[in-house]
């Protein structure tokens, strides 16, 4: 047969060869069908390890216990016992190495997340004593009058 009939075939073969080569170089070795089969498990296995290596920031309340035992004990005997320290003070990360201190948020916003009165008797919100932020001593920080680690007490002056 004449050359011009074969030429497109060579082009196609060349393209296929290039695609296969690129695939060989570009697709990682651990890419394939993993535990959950072709439909749900087709992926690069190393990605799971990537996600596992993500840095942890929140360390939980027990982490604070040894160094801040005074605050820990006060809080655990108070009506606020259920609130994790890190909700109010932010993530511990590697505190006290980095950061050396944690945030101290004295804003009213922190407290009214739970204490703004909402008229929903069927929800858990009804079990928390509510105030109207617009009439309950507006403008003043809550912690001027209430001690956050034991709200039954007046604030330490």
């Amino acid at each position: 047969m004449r050359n011009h009939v074969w030429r497109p075939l060579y082009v196609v073969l060349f393209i296929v060869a290039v695609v296969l080569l690129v695939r060989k170089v570009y697709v990682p070795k651990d890419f394939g069908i993993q535990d959950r089969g072709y439909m749900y498990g087709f992926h690069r296995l190393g990605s799971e390890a990537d996600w596992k290596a993500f840095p942890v920031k929140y360390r939980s309340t027990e982490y604070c216990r040894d160094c801040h035992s005074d605050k820990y004990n006060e809080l655990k005997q108070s009506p606020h016992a259920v609130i994790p320290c890190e909700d109010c003070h932010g993530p511990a990360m590697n505190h006290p190495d980095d950061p050396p201190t944690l945030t101290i948020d004295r804003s009213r916003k922190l407290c009214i997340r739970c204490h703004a009165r909402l008229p929903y008797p069927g929800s858990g919100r009804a079990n928390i004593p509510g105030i109207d932020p617009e009439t309950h001593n507006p403008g003043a920080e809550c912690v001027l009058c209430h001690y956050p680690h034991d709200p039954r007490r007046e604030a330490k002056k």
Partner: protein
Amino acid sequence: MMNRRDFCKKSVLLFGTLAVPLAAFELFDPTSLLAEKNDGKEVRWGFLVDTEKCVGCGFCVKACKIENEVPYNADVSRTWVERYVVTKDGKTHIDSPKAARDGFTTEKIALGEGKFLDIKPDDIAKGFFVPKLCNQCDNPPCVQVCPVGATYQTKDGVVLVDRTWCIGCGYCIMGCPYGVRFFHPVYHVAEKCTFCYHRITKGMKTACVNACPFGARQIGNLKDPDDPVTRTIMTERVNILKEEYGTKPQVFYLGLTKEVR
């Protein structure tokens, strides 16, 4: 020349041999037995949300955003809390301003674009909060639609996204019936709740479970019958979201009502 007796004997032998399954020739493998014995150690992560306990403080959303480095002020979040207010005339009002990152601090329902709706307390039939997150479905539709194998399900049932492999086509975002996926504003790839895979695989709770003061969020191993989450799911009246889609969600809810979508 074969006589009839030989012919019968040989045919029985031949068909008898053919009938023995190939599996009979497989050598006994002790590791397979061990695997069966270890069944109790297998993990399938499941989540339990108790909507009765949620107070709408939003500490879970705050913790999730910080823990997982989702830009704090961007209007996207891996988890969020919805407020449902059902009025006596049968209307349902739903809002979740800033994904409830700062909690619910006012009675006014956010309508978006800076508009608010005031509802008189006397008109309210019921009001409650519903935390939402990825359902880590057993049949994840978001995984099926991925054209490049960038999103997948791990052996323990968590659906993850490979950030180096995602091409940002957005099919999975469209495919999720629960709307839990979005584009990450920094990496520009599909982003979703990972059940804090970096925490649960180290024996910690997820950031949102850790942050919830009231136990409205819990995570557990559905393959362990003694796990408190599993026990609640087996014995209490739990419900799932959008059952009709057949996605088999692994996030279970206590106290759902028909208004919750």
